[in-house]
């Protein structure tokens, strides 16, 4: 029983990691209707920036803040310089651009910072929170995810900017006819997503260590989480993330063993999607003729 609980808590902790990146995916989806495969690498790159700043002697929170801001601008610039050019292209073309970004970021980071793992500090205290079950940092990640979730939710639901972004993602032409500066909305979406990604990266790195491939595995889980929760729902991303985390642990520890746990977890997720094709919390939209 103790081990079981332990698995559940550890799953929740992992799930919070997935959720934090999944939130960035939801953000970019809401504002561009794309799933950004480079989101993980972008987050990883941001985390290296933070690491470099901390190494250069900056205090944690200063580095944190600067990184979030810098990442925002990096996202903005990537959108304006690269993604913008394929705005009217078919989805798959955009996907290839994302893949290009992914490999470039991964490779360049490895080149600059080498592939050895780096320790990234946690802003939370060392002592565990609930006995050995969950460390303060892990609890902190959960907290940060929930904070980002609530912020995003409020942002999209209640601010005009959030509405403008959703409108732009859905119908850029009509949005422009409503006077929305769609170019900036897309860039802003990228910026915010990159900033959220940076937070995710800085939350994840203390747990998995910082290395250029830090996010590639996590991205997969984050995508699964975001889709299971519903790609347009911040709440879905978090619940999806936590579910995937726990599901995977339970599968691995008690049901199918570690060798097939990912496979089985994915099968379960797809099963859920077949049952509910827009994810657990995703809104289903009707297309009528």
């Amino acid at each position: 029983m103790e081990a079981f609980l332990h698995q559940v808590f550890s799953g929740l902790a992992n799930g919070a990691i997935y959720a934090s990146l999944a939130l960035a995916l939801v953000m970019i989806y809401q504002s561009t209707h794309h799933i950004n495969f480079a989101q993980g690498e972008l987050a990883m790159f941001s985390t290296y920036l933070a690491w470099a700043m901390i190494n250069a002697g900056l205090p944690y929170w200063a580095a944190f803040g600067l990184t979030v801001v810098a990442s925002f601008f990096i996202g903005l610039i990537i959108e304006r310089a690269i993604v913008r050019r394929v705005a009217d292209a078919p989805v798959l073309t955009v996907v290839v651009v994302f893949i290009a970004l992914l490999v470039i970021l991964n490779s360049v980071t490895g080149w600059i910072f080498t592939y050895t793992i780096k320790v990234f500090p946690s802003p939370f205290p060392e002592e565990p929170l609930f006995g050995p079950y969950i460390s303060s940092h892990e609890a902190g990640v959960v907290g940060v995810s929930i904070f980002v979730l609530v912020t995003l939710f409020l942002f999209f639901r209640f601010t005009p900017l959030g509405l403008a972004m959703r409108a732009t993602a859905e119908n850029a032409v009509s949005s422009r006819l409503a006077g929305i500066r769609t170019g900036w909305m897309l860039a802003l979406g990228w910026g915010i997503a990159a900033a959220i990604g940076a937070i995710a990266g800085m939350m994840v790195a203390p747990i998995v260590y910082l290395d250029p491939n830090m996010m590639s595995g996590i991205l997969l889980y984050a995508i699964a989480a975001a889709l299971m929760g519903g790609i347009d729902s911040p709440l879905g991303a978090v619940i999806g993330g936590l579910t995937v985390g726990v599901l995977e642990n339970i599968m691995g520890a008690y049901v199918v063993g570690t060798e097939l746990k990912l496979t089985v977890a994915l099968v379960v997720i797809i099963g859920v999607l077949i049952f509910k094709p827009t994810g657990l919390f995703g809104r289903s939209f009707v297309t009528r003729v």
Partner: protein
Amino acid sequence: GEQQTDDQDASVDEIKIGSTNPYSGPASAYGTIGRAESAYFKMINDQGGINGRKINFISLDDGYSPPRTVEQIRKLVEEEEVLFLAGTLGTPTNSAIHKYVNAKGVPHVFVNTGATKWGDPQNFPWTMGFNLSYSNESKIYAQYVLENKPDAKIAILYQNDDYGKDYVHGLKEGLGDKADTMIVAEASYEVTDPTIDSQIISLRASGADTFYNVTTPKFAAQAIRKANDIGWKPLHLLNNVSTSVGTVLEPAGLEKSVGLITALYLKDPVDPQWADDEDMKAYTEWFNKYMPDESIDDAFNVNGYIIASGVARLLEACGDDLTRANIMKQMASIKDLQMPMMLPGITWNTSAEDFFLIESAQLARFDGKEWALFGDVIGN
């Protein structure tokens, strides 16, 4: 297939050597090994080459994908017409070309993985591995456990690929009849897993008092830290792949690493015990000059350095007889060779029947600062 005999003309002033490494893709952390090898040969060439010949080391990217390895090796053999192959990295990748290079009669030496199959002169006379084989290393741990903790309950964490499985297999062989009773839990992970926390929890819950940790650096660091954090204090046997003080133990926490036991055969540039070692000085000097952008912490570079120096040594031994047959002959007649950066007493030995280059290691326990070697050099 036809056997080619396009051995290189001894009169040429350049020796072409081929290799593959994952410079791109998810395994690109190993890329630094290839870069270290290239850097070493650069140094050799700067010093005038070997027997007056420059070395042209062509190391191609295979992205750790077997089909691409086949392609690149064919390019090296058929287009570049390299004299031989050295330091090709990875088990699946080398498996893909194993038959081809032997059919072609191209020396395929210093194969950079620890699988057992690289030492099979009967069937594959052109292939010889470099590392202490994973299974031999495992047997050292098995022997240690059998002697020091005969009623150990062992839990194993391993990477779900041939590297991991070779280790597990070796341990089971080493434990013999007792394997079934002693091994109480096994858990695997995929390289794409973000963490191995769940596996550690499961292994601990099995009631094991001995932990066989067969993981690559990142996961090793995670495992050491996690085991410690949840208060699991087993006899912790760590595979040689991840013994780097700089890139594994420091990230895991030096205090959390106290008590780890491993089998060592290389010197670690970060381990303070070698600070004044002559080998290490030469290494550091070379590193700072030829690999200024890379990380000295990274023990992978040592691997590349030794392979390259082994190749240099081999060419010296070949003299002017740069035929493929002679290369294999020299490769298979190494006697008690003490190479730089190898632990004292760990020598290279081969023969026509024995295609295992490194067959010994010495146990070491981490004391929070350095790997304290103990016991004799084990193996032949």
